[in-house]
């Protein structure tokens, strides 16, 4: 065992594909766009009756405009929170909400929100890191296989 700090916790959290409130989840995001529908019971999904139900039930039926995705930058440059995401034509379409370096993979990883049309695994996107467009791909999460202790 060794002492760790917030940096270690944050890289483990991101490798596991877990959201950090205030970053990947905000008052602007919904459980549908964040891919957290499992957190809403089946009955609530069908009947509503909870704060935000109008928006959420409609997104379940009609698909959300944006989706939270895993992002694997090519090369070694990390893309951190608030890095702009562009499509292959250079249009800014979204933003990185968590990003850093994954010690387990020895590579940079990120997550962020992109339009539904760019959310499929394998989609090529670009990350605007300090004014330079860098190639990246939408990938599935978790980035590192979960091995949670389940007792």
């Amino acid at each position, binding site marked *: 065992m060794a002492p760790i700090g917030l940096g270690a916790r944050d890289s483990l959290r991101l490798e596991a594909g877990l959201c950090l409130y205030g970053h990947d989840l905000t008052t602007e995001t919904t459980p549908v766009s964040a891919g957290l529908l499992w957190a809403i019971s089946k009955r609530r999904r069908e009947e509503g009756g909870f704060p935000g139900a109008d928006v959420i039930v409609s997104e379940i039926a009609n698909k959300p405009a944006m989706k939270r995705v895993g992002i694997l930058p090519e090369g*070694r440059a990390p893309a*951190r929170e608030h890095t702009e995401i562009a499509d292959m034509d250079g249009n800014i379409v979204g933003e990185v909400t968590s990003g850093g*370096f994954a*010690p387990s993979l020895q590579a*940079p990883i990120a997550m962020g929100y992109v339009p539904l049309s760019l959310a499929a695994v394998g989609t090529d996107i670009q990350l605007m890191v300090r004014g330079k467009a860098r190639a990246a791909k939408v990938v599935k999460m978790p980035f590192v296989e979960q091995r949670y202790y389940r007792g």
Partner: protein
Amino acid sequence: MSMKYTKDHEWVSVDGDVATVGISDYAQQQLGDVVFVEVPEVGADLGQGDELAVVESVKAASEVYAPITGEIVDVNADLEGEPSLVNEDAFGKGWFAKIKISDSAQLEELMDEDAYKSFIEGL
């Protein structure tokens, strides 16, 4: 001439009219594992205090500033594939760039080894 240092923990080593720049051992220890270095382009003209490079560690991205004014005449291409050189040999193989000195008087304002040592002891 021996090394000179800035308050932002850059070091400068002068050979003729060219200064090699890197970050100090203290700086690399504070940063932790360096995972990426964005070096400037050869030919870039930098003023003293301009952004010279960006060092990314697991924890954060940090700017490295030009300790003196001048033109970038060489950059350390090895850092692209092996950014950990900054951790392993901050004062040697982990150098960032070489600057053609345009005003040698700027070097006089920098700290010498002893001054830098007492500077970091006071942090």
